[in-house]
């Protein structure tokens, strides 16, 4: 149950985290002008920006620092006046955490929006000057909207290929990594149980009652396999129903996991029979799991000699290769 909860929970949390709005933005309007309000509305209409208008700079700063916002913008006092006078410099401020690189794109987007407004007013000033004040802002706005299409210099066509968003490789990677490590942990603790049963002479008692040791181990292996595959199937079904996975190579995945579980079970039995002592068994199995993760995760890929040969020893490497 814990395995299902953890693997499904973490994969789903990751899936939701990357699906949410790109930007969580706070904005403070110190100008409180018509232009600043329109500008805020303009940003609010972008569905990929989660915009929140803040009244208090100190509260907004606190929200930024506690991670509620990726970035906090301040519309400076005199925003409208500066734009209308044909200037555009230093009219917005922003605060952000230094590692928040992704806001660079949003800053660029916003500066283009401001520049568009600036150019609009800058040219109106020239028009008003050339017409000696006869050409009003209303005339300019009318002429602007009537001629926009005719004076277009660049047109943009956006086509959609109609490709459905694939199951994110990252989501599947996270799920397979989590569930495979949990499977290894369960198998290894299952081995500990075998060791305890041997210590308590349960195996010998079974032998006396006619059940051979091989039969006992095969039965245990089958129960482990069914148990772990059930966990895998239930977790995958939950993630499919939650919309995290849309397509899965069910047969290949099941075969790969079956082989993975069985090989790990054989490794566990080997360690149980070789080590006999519980302390040593725990130490070696922990080392085995750690090295399996290290070697199969491509951390040392191509960096150290013999790594590619050594990683071939660990079943986790093959599981990742087959499924991912």
């Amino acid at each position, binding site marked *: 149950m814990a395995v299902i909860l953890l693997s499904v929970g973490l994969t789903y949390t990751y899936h939701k985290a990357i699906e949410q709005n790109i930007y969580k933005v706070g904005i403070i309007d110190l100008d409180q002008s018509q232009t600043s309000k329109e500008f805020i509305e303009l940003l609010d209409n972008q569905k990929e920006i989660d915009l929140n208008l803040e009244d208090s700079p100190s509260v907004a700063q606190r929200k930024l620092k506690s991670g509620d916002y990726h970035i906090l913008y301040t519309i400076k006092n005199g925003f409208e006046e500066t734009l209308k006078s044909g200037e555009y410099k230093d009219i917005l401020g922003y605060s952000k955490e230094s590692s928040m690189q992704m806001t660079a794109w949003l800053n660029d987007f916003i500066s283009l929006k401001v*520049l568009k407004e600036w150019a609009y007013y800058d040219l109106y000033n020239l028009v008003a000057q050339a017409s000696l004040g006869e050409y009003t802002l209303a005339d300019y706005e009318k002429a602007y909207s009537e001629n926009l299409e005719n004076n277009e210099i660049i047109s943009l066509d956006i086509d959609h290929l109609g490709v459905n968003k694939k199951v994110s490789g990252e989501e599947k990677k996270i799920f397979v990594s989590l569930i495979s490590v949990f499977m290894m942990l369960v198998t290894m603790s299952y081995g500990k149980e075998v060791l305890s049963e041997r210590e308590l002479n349960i195996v010998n008692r079974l032998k006396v009652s006619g059940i051979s040791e091989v039969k006992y181990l095969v039965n245990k292996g089958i129960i482990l396999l069914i148990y772990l595959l059930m966990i895998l199937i239930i977790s995958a079904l939950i993630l499919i129903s939650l919309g995290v996975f849309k397509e899965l190579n069910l047969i290949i995945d099941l075969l790969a996991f079956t082989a993975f579980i069985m090989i790990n079970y054989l490794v566990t039995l080997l360690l149980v029979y070789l080590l006999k002592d519980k302390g040593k068994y725990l130490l070696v199995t922990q080392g085995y799991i750690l090295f399996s993760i290290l070697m199969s995760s491509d951390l040392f890929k191509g960096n150290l000699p013999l790594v590619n040969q050594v990683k071939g020893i660990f079943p986790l490497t093959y599981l990742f290769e087959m499924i991912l």
Partner: protein
Amino acid sequence: MTSYKKLLGVEFKRNYKQLLNMLLLLGLFIILINGIIYLVTNEKLKLDTSIGLVVEDSAMEINMLLGSIRNDELSDIITFRETSMTEGEALLKNDEIIALIHVEENTFEALESGESAKISMTVGSREDIRVVFLSNYIENMVEMLNSSQNSAMIYYELLRENGTPYEERIDELNRLSMKYVEAFIFRSRVFVKDDVYNKFLGLTAIDYYYHVLLIVLMILASIVYHNKLEDDLKNKVITRLINTGYSLKEIYLTKVVISIFYVALLILPLKAGYLLLMNQFNFLNIIKFIPVYIIAIIPIQLIIITIYILVKNDITRDIVFLLFFSSLGFFSGFAMPLEGLPVLDVMKEYNFLHVILKAFIKRSLNISNLVGFLGILVAVVFLFKREAIRFD
């Protein structure tokens, strides 16, 4: 003194197997730090975006437009791949790029014949939020250019109606064009100088979590080391030592000294490795780090030994360790730096794990830090003397 040295020697020898535990913890450290690097670099994941470019027109305007998108600030989060239409569509279908921008040959020659220059963008999925933002971004850019052109043409018409000669009108248009190109290029000037703060005590997120992990590892290694204490108590090893003339103080002091040595075998190379990676490695830095490490680990060791002695049940003890260190770690900002929360900000300054973190990364300590650290040290020594040394 000689007999105490003998005790140290015995404790050292009977714990040489701890090296294996340290090796396992090293493996755990490598996995965790790589996990953190993955998560931190994937903070950009939402925008870590590849865009395919098929540019068949070499006009200056095109270079300017694309150069403007490919500016330095965006290069960290957007990767552009020059490609062909066929390859680009394949990349799009395989989800390797999120959009394909196509500028056909002689696009800008169309302007001379009075038509608009056509730029095409093909996107794979409508669901991808990055695609939505990219589409809006490019549309916004195009809109800005068209808007200025439209306004400029209104002005041009007015000049013509006013009887301004053709050459003067063209000169005026060229002057405006230069002005807007300049503004377009330097558009980031709309922002006042950045107000950027750092929540990771002045470090990058990876450096911060590296040091957090060093402290976590120091705690874990100490817990693992003193695991043997349970057997020593059960098997009356400590009673036998007392019978041979050693005091409890000496016995526990020996345990603390040797465990500090074993844990140092794990922590010091990791710190040295960090300094090496940061190009700050020299022996003086390592020597300076040793007293910091020793002062930091002493209260941790005393707390762990006291818990081992006080809590007899394995499971309860594990829960106590987990709750005690994870809650202190959380409120020290180990999981995520706790900023902007006034009460927690103050409490953090008195939290000894946060003080250790600051000392590890060479941040100056304030009065609250010293009070917090000395407070826990005095409390734990008192508890240790009261509960541990009177034991057996």
